[in-house]
């Protein structure tokens, strides 16, 4: 079951010697450790905007949790690492609706759950299960929210919400993507209302050699490995 889906809709990536799987739903799976990694869930972003006058549909948390659900169902991980900005603001967890709160705890049940601190949710998240951490190192990999130019080898981060624009004859396609080279990776945002930053933005130039990075773009039916050179700026 897992094997079949893997063939169809995910791609293997190696970072710092660790064999990882980039899934079409936007998560990263590390089979050796049975670990699922997700970034930038931005839960309760809709209600955060509502508080400032934009009454966005209050279904983004449910939509994001549904993506998470799909990943957990596929890989049945023993642990989940959320790479920060899991809630859109400090009070986000307190605004969770009853249904979404129940949904989240059902996903968490029976597995280790690490909330890494992000700039939107710097303090430990109260009112939900899981363990808070500023960062986390496991084997060759270092999990943190914000990627740094001088970050360690094996850095797996989020924060930047990478998207790639790929030119084809007659048009171009824009999609969320994993950006990586042999040393590090920046993961796509999982949040339903999380926007994107083009991988040709300066923020990425500080992290990756512009001639030697790749992206894995999330398409309609699978993940596509694209050479960085084919990514266009906006």
């Amino acid at each position: 079951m897992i094997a079949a889906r893997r063939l169809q809709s995910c791609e293997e990536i190696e970072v710092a010697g660790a064999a990882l799987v980039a899934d079409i739903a936007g998560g990263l799976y590390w089979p050796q450790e049975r670990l699922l990694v997700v970034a930038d869930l931005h839960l309760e972003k809709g209600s955060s905007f509502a508080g400032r006058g934009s009454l966005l549909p209050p279904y983004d948390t449910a939509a994001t949790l549904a993506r998470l659900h799909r990943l957990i169902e596929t890989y049945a991980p023993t642990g989940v690492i959320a790479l920060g900005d899991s809630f859109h603001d400090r009070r986000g967890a307190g605004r969770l609706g009853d249904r979404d709160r129940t949904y989240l705890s059902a996903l968490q049940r029976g597995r280790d759950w690490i909330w890494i601190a992000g700039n939107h949710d710097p303090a430990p998240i109260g009112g939900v299960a899981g363990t808070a951490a500023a960062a986390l190192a496991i084997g060759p990999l270092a999990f943190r929210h914000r990627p740094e130019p001088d970050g360690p080898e094996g850095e797996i981060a989020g924060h930047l919400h990478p998207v790639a624009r790929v030119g084809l004859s007659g048009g171009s396609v824009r999609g969320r993507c994993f950006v990586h080279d042999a040393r590090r990776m920046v993961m796509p945002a999982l949040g339903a209302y999380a926007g994107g930053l083009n991988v040709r933005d300066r923020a990425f130039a500080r992290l990756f050699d512009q001639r030697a990075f790749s992206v894995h773009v999330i398409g309609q039916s699978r993940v596509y490995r694209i050479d960085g050179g084919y990514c266009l700026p906006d």
Partner: protein
Amino acid sequence: MSLLDRLDADQRAELPQRFARWFASRGWHPRAHQLELLARARQGRSALLIAPTGAGKTLAGFLPTLVELSGPHAAGRGSPRADRPGRGLHTLYISPLKALAVDIARNLERPVAEIGLPVRLETRTGDTPVSKRQRQRRNPPDILLTTPEQLALLIASADAPYLFNTLRRVVLDELHSLVTSKRGDLLALGLARLFALAPALTSVGLSATVAEPDDLCRFLVPQPPSGSAHADLVMAQGGAQPIVTMLDTRERLPWAGHSARHALPEIYDLIRRHRTTLVFVNTRSQAEMLFQELWRINDDGLAIALHHGSLDVAQRRKVEGAMAEGRLRAVVCTSSLDLGVDWGDIDLVVNVGAPKGSSRLMQRIGRANHRLEEPSRGVLVPSNRFEVLECRAAIEAVADNAQDTPPLRAGALDVLAQHVLGRACGEPFLAADLFAEVRSAAPYAGLTRSDFDAAVDFVATGGYALKSYERFAKIRQGDDGRWRVAHPRVAQSYRMNVGTIVEADMLKVRLVRSRGPGAGYAGAVARRGRVLGQVEEYFIETLVPGDTFVFAGEIVRYEALVEDEAYVSRTTAADPKIPAYEGGKFPLSTYLADRVRAILADSSSWGLLPEQVREWLEIQRWRSLAPARRDLLVETFPHAGRHHLVCYPFEGRLAHQTLGMLLTRRLERARLRPQGFVANEYALALWGLGDIGLRIERGELSLAALFDRDMLGDDLDAWLAESALMKRTFRNCAIVAGLIERRYPGKEKSRREVTVSTDLVYDVLRRYQPDHMLLRAAAADAATGLLDIRRLGDMLSRIAGRIVHKALDRVSPLAVPVLLEIGRETVHGEAADALLAAAAADLVREAMG
């Protein structure tokens, strides 16, 4: 003696002496329709005046007001009150264009001064300083000239009852143009409010000729709860019948494309032989191209200018000024000059490309020669063979004086939501009262209570089934049952975002110095230069830095996107990428399409067509067939190693694109492996690896099933989930309804930082609440807008049981033009034309040989 003449004689006596003297002093006679409007006003009636350009329409609209303000009629109205310095507002004039309001004010000042009337008239637009606006509210002028958006703002203030209760008349200019858009919906709602606030109000609509004057007559007066009410209709005597001809080119008529390059010397010759020529084209890119090419052959150095909606406003006003002063020999323009005051002494209108609609063409040609007694002159220049048919159809339609303006639209729910918030920003309202008031506006006469309640619910808490936003409500119901804004911040935000024209997807185009190859993301750009104009964001999104295109009359190189500006630099490139941005493209009107099909079906009428077009149709008839007027011809043939299906619905590019998307899905399911399609105004061509023709011949694929109306069910629904056009439609609704704000008080952050992509919102909402008001509003827009679904539906009904299949062994002559569209958007300038020419030669040999 006709009725109008008798009225004329009766009423002239009633024109006050000083007015009669003024007319005489200018060597004018008051026109029958001007006196007629005066008479209607004296009877307290609202009226619609339909008159051609140059008939003194504006003066007719204001004459009753000026007469009332000049003498005894003014008595008894608005007697000065302690708290009101003046007499109060008497007449409100609303124009679709800010510039037009300013021009009209200037034109009115002349009779006011020359007759010596004690009348104060002022304009109020987005440019009016805050201090003046405040003063206007405290001490209003007699006549205020403004726009629909400013009216909405005035209504949303607590002063509205004070300001408007003295109002006697509202004059709506260019009404035919206003009512076709969401601005018309906004205006209709504003008008309904005015009628409620000013018991003695009457309205005057000024309009060009339309297909259904009745619709506009209803628009002008409050509609009763059942049945309908109409303003009086006053028709000015038409001017002389225009003389419209088609350019009979000595050159070869192109098979496809819209450049009309073949006819350039002939167009130039027409300009040379006339005083001032307006050259209308359909898209901004055509305007840019034609302007460049005309200057390339402008050996006489004629003053030829360019005018279109993307150019900087100051630049446009300069061109208009020069034209009014008679300093220009020609202006190449788009629909940007369809409206506006009478410019200068224009003696010829050239329409390059497809006329698209009969009414539109007549309005354009009416721009030539503003002396009513003399005929306007128009020359149509088809840019390809199909357009010859369309021009022929249009000439016949003009001769029949056939109008094809669209019917009155049903009021949009997103505009209603905006209005509901605006009303809550003014005086608190009771839902039942507002519902009745809204229904009195003609476009909303059919509004249901549940849709109205959905709009109120949307404004209050977003209208979600999941009720989680009560504490964030924008408007709340008080103990008195009245709705009011929950916080002054809400009203402030409303005022900053009022309006229905979604401009946020336009980017400024700024000229900078090139940073050479390898540019891309926004590095430091050496020098910020001037703004050339605006361009659609989605156009820029298709560009890669280094691409060249023609803009504002020069070839520029795209450098980078910086915040909300597209940076471009000058380039020496001689081969610009053809700009694919097609701002202002209208589909072929249903009426004209039917006439084109009639010409195609009736070979006895082909004698009126140019020789080369006749020959093309004759060979089509011999090779395949010339379809009957109501039939749909479907041809299948192998070509270039692929199997093609070409059909000819004549329903416009937008409807054909939607059809192409839906047929592709169905062909995929039939395992015919479709690979692509291309649409133009007349036809749709699809191609793939499977032999479509053979499958039809064998009875394995039914054309009737393929073109069945049921494609508008699940297939459409599945496609809408991904369609970029649908997402753009949704975005417009979300902005108009106020879900997404474009401007924020006190913050000048880039909108990219503070907004959530409406595409993401669309995906989520569609999945979790597919019947939400905004999705219904977007679906209503998609029926007529970018996806033209309603027209597609009408077409599918028309052709049911009338599909004629021709299996051919090669390309048919009729299919050549649409096949030549393949790849046009990705190839480059002159190379593209060379490529097209080469491809054309091959195709033509295959088809005609």
